[in-house]
């Protein structure tokens, strides 16, 4: 089967979720990746792409132009399956391409398609509290893959690079400015996340979260009340009405674990919960629990991780 994978690039770099999508696609069929901008796309070959279509004229993931790029690439390659990463840009572009091609979209895939009875993809629904098996009924099929649900694998191949210059039309949305979130790891891509709740008592205590995150190379996050009272920015809020994340390791300090918070993090591979209250509901969802005061436990954990890293 011929698979087309859309890979976003930013500031001359291919996104990490893009590598995961290429690996995912290569398990289904022969992958052609399509990307844009000033990137060296040969790295995509290492993750299993046989061919890369590169549009240098497109500089950012504008959804109208990216949609045309994908539609043209589908025409050129005759792809049966189109894979996106379900990140910020992918959400917009996958749904536009679905409507443009009248091709069914399984949004939020967490596993490979099963084809013994039609074409069925397991997706996350109810904010991770359940899965839906979605059957795609059209000839062309679109899958958007939740970042971090499928690890990127280096297979060490090389891809043929083909520059394309399709007419992508006008960009209706003009970007005036990009405000970056600083040097830290972007939360949706992070493999380790350290998160704090109201139990930390105030924004002035966040250095404990930040220190541990720095030692672990982790991103920082928070619960909804913390974002609502303005201790932390909204983009750090994980939970049902915030961001849903799937890191390898989620460390929660001073968060009781309301059902709405769990919905955003229960896709994490390993969950560590630190709370003074042994009855906190979060312990039921945790792999490892520490019943103790975050103000004492977090600095101790930070020291223990530092010691561990020094001996590596």
């Amino acid at each position: 089967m011929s698979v087309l994978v859309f890979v976003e690039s930013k500031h001359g770099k291919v996104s990490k979720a893009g590598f995961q999508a290429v690996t995912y696609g290569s398990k289904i069929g022969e992958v052609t990746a399509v990307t844009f901008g000033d990137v060296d796309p040969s790295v995509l070959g290492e993750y299993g792409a046989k061919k890369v279509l590169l549009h240098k004229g497109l500089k950012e993931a504008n959804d109208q132009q990216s949609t045309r790029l994908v539609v043209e690439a589908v025409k050129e390659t005759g792809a049966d399956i189109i894979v996106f990463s379900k990140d910020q840009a992918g959400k917009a572009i996958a749904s536009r391409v679905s409507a443009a091609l009248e091709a069914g979209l399984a949004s939020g895939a967490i596993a490979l398609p099963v084809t013994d009875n039609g074409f069925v993809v397991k997706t996350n629904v109810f904010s991770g509290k359940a899965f839906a098996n979605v059957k795609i009924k059209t000839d062309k099929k679109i899958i958007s893959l939740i970042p971090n649900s499928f690890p990127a694998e280096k297979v060490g191949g090389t891809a043929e690079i083909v520059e394309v210059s399709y007419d992508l039309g006008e960009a209706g949305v003009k970007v005036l400015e990009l405000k970056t979130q600083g040097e830290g790891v972007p939360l949706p891509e992070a493999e380790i996340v350290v998160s704090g709740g109201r139990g930390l008592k105030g924004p002035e205590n966040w250095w404990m979260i930040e220190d541990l995150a720095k030692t672990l190379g982790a991103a920082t996050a928070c619960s909804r009340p913390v974002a609502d009272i303005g201790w932390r920015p909204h983009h750090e809020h994980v939970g049902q009405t915030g961001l849903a994340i799937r890191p390898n390791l989620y460390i929660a300090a001073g968060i009781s674990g309301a059902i709405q918070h769990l919905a955003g993090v229960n896709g994490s591979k390993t969950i560590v919960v630190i709370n003074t209250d042994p009855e906190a509901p979060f312990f039921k969802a945790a792999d490892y629990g520490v019943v103790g005061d975050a103000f004492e436990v977090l600095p101790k954990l930070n020291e223990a991780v530092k010691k561990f890293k020094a001996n590596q």
Partner: protein
Amino acid sequence: MKLLVCISKAPDTTSKIAFTDNNTKFDENGVQYIVNPYDEWYALVRALELVEAKGGTVTTITVGTSADDATIRKALAIGANDAVRIDTEAKDAYYVAKQIAEYAKDKGYDIVLTGKETINYNGAQIGGMIAELLDMPYVSLAEKLDVDGDTAKLERDVLGGTEVVEVKLPFALSAAKGMAEQRIPNMRGIMAARKKPLQVVPPVDVEPLTEVISYEMPPAKSACKYIDPDNMDELVELLHNEAKVI
């Protein structure tokens, strides 16, 4: 300004998630439906703020049966001028988007607003599909929206930061946290909502592209392993050797 806000119902965030009919249907037993929070708190409230400041109308649109009328009245109580319900069960995202696009295409809406996703299906598909079907620019995951004449300025969530963008009307957007604050309807709003027009429109013929054939619950978590707060070396050791995550 003529604004169209897409409203969907969703189970209350505290609902117990369970399935019936051999795991093919969501178990609605005891479930309280609310207006999907992203549609209500952010898209609808910001639309109302804009017309309050600059004049215009806010119409809500819903694809659903009469079972959806209670949530539609809630949106009217918060302040929408009128509502449209396309009288059919929502079958899949494309089916819903196509119904809305067919209704909206010749009505001259300046902005079509959706929530960034529903909290039950998390598809994040409707806004982009409507934009494509109406051939409009689309600003997804918008956290701020201001309109000046025929131009809108928005901030939106992108990989690694926030983008400030500009777009000419008409366009579509999906609203995320930060765009507005939740509004609680007052008694006057609730009374007024009863008399506001709710137009019921027949659906157009659309073939859904996908179908949910079954649901599953995630596997049960094994019991939590407790570690002494004075022994963080043990936790690090377990994270390294057992969980293999550091």
